[in-house]
């Protein structure tokens, strides 16, 4: 035994979800990054234009720009943050998904709770 045992990480089973199977491939030229950058610029400017031009009713507009933001966030996660990369287990994806769920819940429920629909009529 030349190398000492690391105190950590000696197995456990790794759960693989087919969809989330790790990928590490990289192109010779940073196409992904360039595409991601261009896409986020387009999406940002697009959202800005939509708002400046008031193309939709306020609520619809809000929904659309939120959707654009979500797409952009997905691009960042996928293209820049190498979301699918990991040493086997895909736990960070599961955890992130729960975190996002909790986050959305907090925002939506807080707004709902604080709008006070109460009233003796």
């Amino acid at each position: 035994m030349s190398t000492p045992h690391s105190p950590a990480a000696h197995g456990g089973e790794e759960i693989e979800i087919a969809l989330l199977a790790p990928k590490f491939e990289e192109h010779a030229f940073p196409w992904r990054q360039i595409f991601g950058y261009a896409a986020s610029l387009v999406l940002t400017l697009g959202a800005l234009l939509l708002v400046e031009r008031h193309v939709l009713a306020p609520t619809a507009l809000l929904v659309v720009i939120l959707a654009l933001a979500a797409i952009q966030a997905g691009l960042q996660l996928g293209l820049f943050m190498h979301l699918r990369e990991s040493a086997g287990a895909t736990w960070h994806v599961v955890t992130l998904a729960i975190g996002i769920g909790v986050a959305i819940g907090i925002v939506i429920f807080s707004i709902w709770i604080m709008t006070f629909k109460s009233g003796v009529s």
Partner: protein
Amino acid sequence: MTVQAHPAQQTQMPLEFRDSHETLGILGFWLFLASDVVLFACLFAVYAVFHGRVAAGPTPLQIFHLGPVLTETVLLLTSSFTCGIGIFMMRRGRTKALMAWLALTMLLGLAFVGMEITEFTTDVATFGTWHQSAFLSSFFTLVGTHGGHVSFGILWAAALLVRLWRQGITQATARRVYTFSLYWHFLDIIWIFLFTVVYLSGKIT
């Protein structure tokens, strides 16, 4: 310190994933980010509830100027891109290029923070402090928390540059640069939502 799991993939795996002990740090950092998502969600919830509570202070329409905010957004988006290129270079083992792109990322971050501080000081000079209203309090806190995160990232990047300069790309430094990149892209995502929820929707209606 060699990897036990996935010996088959060992050769294809990027440096930062080769040592299973180092990968614990990557998973840990993802979990921290997931936790930070909830922190920002709470601040967003506060902002969403408070944005109309302007009391006697200014309204969102009065204080938001999309011009400078758009510049900030582009700065941050670009820094996210340069950071991504940095990782790309790291995976190709090019230390100098990595350091250059990382330094560029840091400078763009600095420019972003500088602009934000300028924006804040002008706002305070024109409209008064965050004491004025719940809206101003939540606005400054939400945006400021993000700015604080970015500032911390700049400090982190500086430390990484020193370490890279001394040691080059090793398993340990690669892992650290990689977690830094996760952090930096994450801040970019938060900013996208800040830009949308705070600034853009402030201009709707």
